[in-house]
């Protein structure tokens, strides 16, 4: 038999591929089913966010921040306004802080629900996706009640929030928490401990702690590698130090530390902690105050620069603002967590099967809006 000539095949995975969560393009070199080399191409969703910020005043940037990570708009707003408030030295009324924490944590749950659902979808389980979206819908209802919008809220303002909580919000929110916590068991039964799901994700695409730190991976992905680091606890901002909650660190209970399953399961457990924080915040919510009392009419900044980072559902979201003293930032740089998390895949993904690459991509939970900005 003559020698068969074989060669590696270059496949374009994306930007229209269903597993790339938007418009990511991976140029993968494959040997059969094995991925030899991954070359991610980004920028299909580039909307010049940082350049826009150089011509808009500080208030006007908030809707743009929403559109970066559209699955966690509240968290993005929270991070951004805290950076500006640090620049301005604004003292906030306590009720505002509580409302912001409630919104951020609800949004964290909503974002993790999307992550879980789409990860299940990547592995081939269609039903959990619909279940998580059913529950996310209830959070969106709460947001709609408060801000009038379901996805991009423009709710958290510099020095305050756009509206006070509407009547009946607290009761509805308690109702949601009571409804939601038992649902976590449903996800466990349906997906987390499914034999096929474990076979597909455990011990797959392992990110060791050292590698995770090297690449600047943050958020649930970092904690899944066993690194005990959460800005909400280690660099407490807002009022997170007032609540009693745990930082979830993976223990590699079905596979090893840092595998796809750990990254998935850290999110499941984090949703429980977020629900706890929301509950405590609702209980401790100070009574009526003017939520706009500290909102500055015109933002007058000092000359100088500020860096502020906060814990976004995807990791550390940083804003670096250079101010020239006017009401328009001279330069704004966003440190995007999903961008840093994504950057590791060319290193981690080599030698995986195509199916495992999909599992890796799904488990690091990228949002292209934030990567491309």
């Amino acid at each position, binding site marked *: 038999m003559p020698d068969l000539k074989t060669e590696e*095949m270059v*496949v374009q995975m994306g930007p229209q*591929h*269903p*597993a790339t969560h938007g418009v990511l393009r991976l140029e993968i070199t494959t040997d059969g*089913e094995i991925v030899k080399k991954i070359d991610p191409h980004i920028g299909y969703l580039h909307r010049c966010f940082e350049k826009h910020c150089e011509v808009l005043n500080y208030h006007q940037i908030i809707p743009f921040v929403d559109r970066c990570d559209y699955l966690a708009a509240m968290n993005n707003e929270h991070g951004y306004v805290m950076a500006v408030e640090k620049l301005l030295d604004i003292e906030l009324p306590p009720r505002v802080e509580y409302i912001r924490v409630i919104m951020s944590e609800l949004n964290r749950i909503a974002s993790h629900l999307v992550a879980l659902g789409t990860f*299940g*979808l*990547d*592995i*081939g*389980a*269609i*039903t959990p996706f*619909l*279940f998580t979206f*059913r529950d996310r819908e209830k959070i969106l209802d709460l947001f709609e009640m408060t801000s009038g919008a379901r996805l991009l809220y423009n709710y958290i303002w510099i020095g305050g929030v756009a509206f006070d909580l509407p009547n009946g919000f607290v009761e509805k929110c308690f109702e949601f928490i009571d409804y939601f916590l038992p649902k976590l068991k449903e996800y466990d039964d349906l*997906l987390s401990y*499914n034999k*096929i*799901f474990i*076979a*597909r994700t455990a011990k797959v695409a392992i990110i060791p702690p050292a590698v995770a730190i090297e690449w600047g991976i943050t958020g649930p992905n970092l904690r899944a590698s066993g690194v005990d680091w959460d800005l909400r606890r280690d660099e407490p901002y807002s009022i997170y130090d007032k609540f009693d909650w745990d930082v979830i660190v993976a223990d590699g209970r079905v596979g090893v530390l840092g595998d796809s399953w750990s990254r998935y399961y850290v999110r499941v457990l984090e949703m429980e902690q977020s629900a706890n924080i929301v509950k405590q915040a609702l209980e401790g919510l100070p009574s009526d105050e003017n939520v706009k009392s500290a909102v500055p009419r015109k933002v007058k900044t000092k000359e100088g620069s500020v860096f502020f980072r906060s814990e976004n559902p995807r990791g550390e979201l940083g804003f670096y603002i250079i101010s020239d003293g006017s009401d328009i930032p001279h330069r704004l740089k966003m440190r995007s967590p999903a961008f840093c998390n994504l950057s590791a895949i060319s290193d981690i993904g080599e030698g995986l*099967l*195509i*199916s*495992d690459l*999909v599992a890796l991509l*799904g488990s690091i939970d990228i949002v292209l809006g934030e990567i491309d900005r």
Partner: protein
Amino acid sequence: MDYFIQIVTDLLPGLDGLPVWLVIPSIMFMFGALIFTGISIYSLIILWFERKIAAHMQDRLGPMEVGGWHGWLQTVADAVKLLLKEDIIPAVADRKLFKLAPYIVFLAAFSVFAVLPFSDKIVGSELNIGIFYILAVSSIGVVGILMAGWASNNKWALFGSMRSVAQLVSYEIPIGLSILVVVMSVGSLSMRDIVMAQDGGIFNWMIWQNAPFNFIAFLILFIAGTAETNRVPFDIPEAESELVAGFHVEYSGMRFSIFFLAEYANMLAVGIIASTLFLGGWQGITGASSAPGIGLIWMLLKGFLIVLVMIWFRWTLPRLRVDQLMYVCWKVLVPISFINMVGAGIWIGLSS
């Protein structure tokens, strides 16, 4: 077939005057058209059923608009849409192979029905090697899938067809071995003989014979049959989130729907083969009924039941990986079915 010829000649007395070489093919053609229509109607019904079941499993309603009552016409509307859609052939595709592939896949699925006994009398051809014929004919589909993947000139389609070929060829072995258990118990390859051997009510069905060997054989046949039809959890050839749509990624309109039809025909074929071999075929729970049509209803009920279990699988389970799929076949199903076959042989030898 004889029964069918008799019916047709009764209905159309003029046929007697025609020469035999013309009558037999035309009746065969009629029977084929009948089965084709039957499969199409069944596919429309089962598709609607699947969508409703999936919807209710997922806390939603599914199609509700078209046709009034619970959207029962939705799949008909979809079929019409597919018929009217533009049929696109990629510029770089191998046109001849590309056009031919769906028909080969469908041919394989379709010709299996020729020997399936829908009832005592309704059967296309009573081959004395019926089950052997099924095994042989159903393998042709692999060629069509490989052709589709190769001719599309699309890397994802190529991946899909490579996976599919590996999968289908592998899973034929456990299927063959578990069918062998039944053949050994009955001592015949004819579908009719196999059903007749299960006469006399539910406890005489093949699934309970040679305990536990036949039961294990049934499970293996069902699992491998699910894999043969590319259904979840073995749907890696068309794994949506990995390969977009696998081997039929470039197909649209009618050609796509022929692939679709073949998949659903295959599902029904697996259901009917499994129930013929193990669940008493056309015989009811209390035994065969002499009333006409009852056998057909029992057969379809049993076939549908197995198809429903496959649908239930699809909306519950995630998908296996390629190597895990091969592992399940070669390291789990094949050894078990070998041991099972040997055990059944010893059991039959000792008990006879």
